[in-house]
Structure formats: C-alpha cells, structure tokens
C-alpha cells in the first residue's frame, strides 16, 4: 500500500505547528466567510490568495498556503449550514437544500440538534470523500501521466460540455456565459505567439483579466446587490449547542446510516463530474425523501432531511479537488480558484504533481483529514459566536465586505484598475444571476481558458490541423464522444420528452 506510506509522510508535513495553526485560522476565517452574505468559498479564497504570494515563496510555503486556503474552503462549507438553519438564508448555494428541514427544526427550538446533525454529517461526507481521494487520486494521476495535448483538450472539452449537459440553467445561457469566460481569458498576450489580443491599445489589459478580480466581483459584489433586494434585516433563531444536545443527536444519527451512504455516493460522483456541490445536495435530498420511511414528513423539520444534503454537499465539495490535483481540472468554482493559486505559486497542476511535488500533494491530502476534524471542533464549540456575526446590522457589514473585496481586488496586481473592474463584474454578476446565466462555467473558463486553448493548438500542430486527432485512439475518442453527447444532451432529452408527451 504505497498510498498509506505516502499519506503518513503527508501527515508529517501537515502536522507541523505552523500548518496546524494555519488550519485553525483557515477554518475560522472560512466559517466567517461562509456565514457572511456576499462572501463565500470562491471569493473568500480569491481575496486571501494574493496575501499568500509571499508565503508560497518560502521552502514548504506552497504547502502551507494551500493548507490555509483549502481550510478556508472547508470552513465555508461548514459555515453555509449555520445561516441556513438559523436564519433560513443559505450562506452558500449548496446549503439551500439544508434550509428545507433545518429552518423548521430551528423554529421548533431544535436548532442545536439541527446544527449538530448538519456539522456531523458534513464531516462524515467530507471524510469519506477524502478517503476516496487518498486511494483514487494516485491511480487517476498515474493514468493521466500518459496524456498528451489531445487527451488534455478532450478532458477540458468533457468538463465544459458536462456543464451544458448537467446545469439546470438554460443550455444556451450556460454556453454564452462559458464563452464569455474563454473570451476574458484570451484577453492579453497570446501564450503561444506573444501577439496581443483583445486589448484595443489599453495598457491595463496587457496582462489580461485576472480571474481573482472576476470572482470577487461576480460572487462578492453581485451577491451583496442580490441580498439588498431582500431588504436590510436578518431575523434568526438563537443558537445554543451544549454537549448534552450534541451527544443526544450523535446517538440518533447512526439510524440514518443508509441515507449517509447514499448521499456520500451522490456527492462524490457529482463532485468529480463538474456538477458540483449544489446539485449534489438537491439530488441527495430528493433521493432521501423518496427512500426514507418518513419521506412524507420531509420539509417539516426532520433531522434526516438535514443529514442528506449536508453529507452530499461536503462529499461533493471535497471530491471536487480530486480532478483538480490529478488532472488540473477543478470540479467547482472554489476548486478553480485554488487551482489558479497553484499556477500563481509556480506549480503546474496535473498528474506530474504526484511525481514532482510529493510533499505538496500528500501534505494537502493529509490536511484534508485534519482540516475537517479542526472544522468540526471549531463549529461545534463556536456556533453562537458565528451566529452573532449575522446580528451585526447590514448597514455596517455590507460596506465593510465591499471594502474588503476592493482591497482584495487591488492586491491581486497592485492595480486600482482592478477595483473598477470589480465593480463592473459585480453589476454583471447581479444581472447574470437574475437572468439565470450560471457563473460557475464562466469562472472555470477564465481559469482554464489559456490551458484549454494551448492544449488545442498543440494538438492541432501534432495533427497538422486535422480535427480527427480528437478521435485518434480509444481513450481520446471516448472522451470526445462523451463530451459531444453531453453537449447535445439538453436537445436529446427535450426531444425524448416531446416524443413521450405525444405517446401519452
């Protein structure tokens, strides 16, 4: 078992005092970010990423930096549940399904029970997903080592086509949003020939649009503008968790083991496929409602209705890192930001990481185990504190968040131009959200655009311009075919639906 020894080595890296301290800092920051409106995993990590530039330059610093940032991600995943249950406001899109049963529980005075169930099942979902990452990622990486440019382009194609095929937004809006992302990625110096593209003589655009600024604007400012429409006040249940409630809930939870297993499977699958945590949580809630003997009572405050979406969301959020570290293709917007971080720190994400950066990869995987334990401890002990953050009036918290976003945008390249761009992206984010243009494929396209393009151009060079290279062997052919099938899926399923309608 080579993985076990690598993992033990990883624990050695992750357990240094600095890294453990960073884990707790990351988790606490992450929960705060998850609780605050307008800040979430993706833009929270984006704001803090520039601050790690210096850290990543020291020996072993890149590992510490990724531990800090990934723990912010875990914290944000935990934090989303707090606002869903206590305030009926999903802090993160993947916690929407948690409000269905979590908020009724809180209204019945069982907030402590709901929170404990949510945190514990999140932890279990994440833990099982990390176990899967531990054993599956070296295999995937080894497999992917043989990939050339056509194979990588096929992987990118598959990722983006999967968005069109699986997203709940209208397919042509998904497509338009994605292409905008690619176009933004193309701005600046062409990586292959050095030609300037889409800059129109502006010196600000020479280095292109930074995905961090886009993420901060789209998710941060856009989200705040959306929240504003709902009014300025939050009303919430009070949070009390004591050890008695925790132990009682833990005694109850094993009853829902089957739900947990099902939800973890749904979550892991949806996380690896770039569907992400949000659909996973909804799917898992739906599946649990169908199969549970109490299914009819879902929505009135069943603990099982909290367990299912939380387990799946965390399993998906965690397994989204599997394709990120093995193939360099992130499964979620936050994973995309982390991937961008790796590139900025000078690490080339992809299968070679497992060969060249063993300390980094296994330190990260070990930190996933430890970070989630740290997360569980932090959220169980500090819930009232975090809930208190939401009691800060909106007229204070909103401008402070916007200022933090502005500082975050500035620090990316030390450019005031980026602060202006943040506002522009904020307005776009608001408009896109309201007209159902998905933001996740847009962000992924900005991050992966250059890589996808250069993979394509290298593949074309290999074949002297023959697109047939994307079907040249069984592997690349299967991936390309699958991608095209996913791309056409909305049309196929609409056609099937019509046929079925005619028969009925």
């Amino acid at each position, binding site marked *: 078992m080579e993985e076990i020894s690598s993992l033990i080595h990883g624990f050695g890296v992750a357990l240094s005092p600095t890294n453990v301290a960073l884990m707790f800092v990351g988790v606490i920051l992450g929960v705060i970010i998850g609780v605050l409106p307008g800040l979430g995993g993706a833009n929270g990590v984006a704001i803090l990423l*520039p*601050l790690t530039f*210096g850290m990543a330059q020291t020996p072993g610093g890149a590992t510490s930096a990724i531990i800090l940032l990934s723990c912010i991600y875990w914290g944000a995943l935990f934090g989303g549940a707090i606002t869903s249950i206590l305030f009926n406001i999903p802090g993160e899109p993947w916690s929407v399904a948690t409000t269905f049963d979590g908020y009724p529980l809180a209204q019945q005075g069982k907030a402590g029970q709901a929170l404990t169930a949510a945190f514990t099942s999140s932890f279990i979902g994440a833990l099982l997903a990390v176990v899967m990452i531990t054993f599956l990622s070296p295999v995937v990486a080894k497999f992917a080592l043989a990939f050339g440019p056509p194979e990588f382009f096929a992987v990118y194609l598959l990722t983006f086509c999967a968005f069109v095929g699986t997203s709940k937004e*209208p397919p*042509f*809006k998904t*497509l*338009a949003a994605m*292409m*905008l992302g*690619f*176009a933004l990625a*193309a701005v600046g110096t*062409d990586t*292959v*020939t050095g*030609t300037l*593209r*889409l800059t*129109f003589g502006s010196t600000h655009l020479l280095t292109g649009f930074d995905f961090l600024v886009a993420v901060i604007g789209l998710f941060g*400012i856009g989200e*705040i*503008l959306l929240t*504003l*429409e709902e*009014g*300025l006040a939050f009303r919430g249940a009070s949070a009390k968790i004591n050890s008695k409630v925790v132990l009682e809930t833990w005694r109850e939870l094993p009853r829902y083991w089957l739900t947990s297993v099902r939800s973890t499977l749904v979550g892991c699958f949806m996380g690896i496929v770039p569907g992400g945590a949000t659909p996973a949580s909804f799917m898992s809630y739906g599946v649990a409602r169908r199969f549970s003997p109490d299914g009819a009572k879902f929505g009135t405050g069943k603990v099982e209705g909290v367990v299912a979406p939380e387990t799946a969301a965390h399993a998906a959020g965690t397994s989204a890192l599997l394709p990120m570290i093995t193939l360099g293709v992130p499964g979620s917007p936050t994973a995309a930001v982390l991937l961008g971080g790796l590139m900025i720190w000078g690490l080339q994400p992809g299968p070679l990481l497992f060969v060249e950066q063993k300390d980094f990869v296994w330190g990260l995987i070990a930190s996933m185990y430890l970070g989630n334990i740290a997360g569980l401890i932090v959220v169980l002990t500090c819930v009232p504190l975090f809930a208190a953050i939401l009691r800060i*009036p*909106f*007229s*204070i918290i*909103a*401008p*402070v968040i*916007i*200022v933090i976003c*502005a*500082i975050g945008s*500035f*620090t990316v390249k*030390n450019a*005031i131009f980026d*602060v*202006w761009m*943040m*506002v522009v992206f*904020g*307005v776009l984010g*608001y*408009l896109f959200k*309201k*007209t159902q*243009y998905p933001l996740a494929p847009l962000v992924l396209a900005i991050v992966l655009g250059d890589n996808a*393009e250069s993979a*394509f*151009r*290298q593949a*074309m*060079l290999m074949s002297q*311009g023959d697109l047939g290279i994307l079907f040249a062997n069984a592997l690349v052919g299967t991936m390309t075919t699958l991608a095209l099938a996913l791309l056409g899926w909305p049309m196929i399923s609409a056609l099937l639906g019509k046929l079925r309608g005619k028969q009925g």
Partner: protein
Amino acid sequence: MTDGPEGEGRAAFGQKSAELAVAAFFFVIGAVVIADSLRLGTGWQEVHGPRPGYFPFYLGLIMCAASLINAARALLAKRAEDKAFVEVGQLRLVLTVLVPTAVYAGLVSWIGIYVASFLYIALFMRWLGKYPWWKAAAVPGCLIVVFFVVFENWFKVSLPKGPLENLLGLG
C-alpha cells in the same frame, strides 16, 4: 411602463427587457471578439499552427449564436411570464449601494483606499443605517486602523495612499 400604480412594488424593468439587454450584451462582446480575431487571422500558419485569432473567432461565433437564441427565447416567452425583473423599491436599494460603490472605486486613486473606505463606510452607516455621527465615524475609524496594521505591517502589502497619508508621513 410609465402608467400603472405608483409605488415601491411596481416593476422597474420587466424580465423580458432584462433578458434582451443581457443577450445584447453577449452579442456585442461576441462581435468584438470576432472582429479582433479577424484582424489577428483565424487560419493556419506554418510552425505556429492555428493563428492567435483561431480559438477566439469560434468562441465569438458561438457567443453570438447563443445570444441570438437566448434573445429569441425571451421574445417568444409568454406575456404572463414577463414578471418584474426588479421592483422600483428594490432597484432604489440596489442603486443606493451601487452608486456610492462606483464613486468609492473612483475615489481610491485620488485619496487612497484608507480615506475612501472611511468615508464610504461612514456615509453608508449614516444614510442607510441612520447611526449617529459619532458611531458612523468611530466604527470605520477603528476598522481602517486595523486594516492598515494588518496589510501594511503584517502582510507587507502596500495599499493605495493619498494626500492624507503623505501628510502624516505614512505614505
């Protein structure tokens, strides 16, 4: 849109107009991308392979096509589905935040991020939160000191400064 009852709940824009506007935005961007790609060349070039405009050209084409389809779908949507995109009251709230934020972003290059942030948070608290002046000054006052220490001292990140910082010898 002008007739109809006056009030906060009235639609400022319909969903259909918003859909069309966003589709138009995508179309324009797509057209710009196509235009620049044509300038760069979309064909094949010896040694380098596809020219720099090759990839963006097709992106632009897809973007324009997709936005035409989206616009058509918005036009064909049933009238009953044309619900309010944003109500007047909501739009007012959004603009009361958006306009000062845009002004704030513009001010950063003139007076530095610290003074701009102070003014922004203070005015926000005073106007939207109706806080007394001393509170609206104390909260952002403390915050920017914390920001200064965290960024300039801990992280050694130099944020934009203006005349005030220069006067105090902090620039």
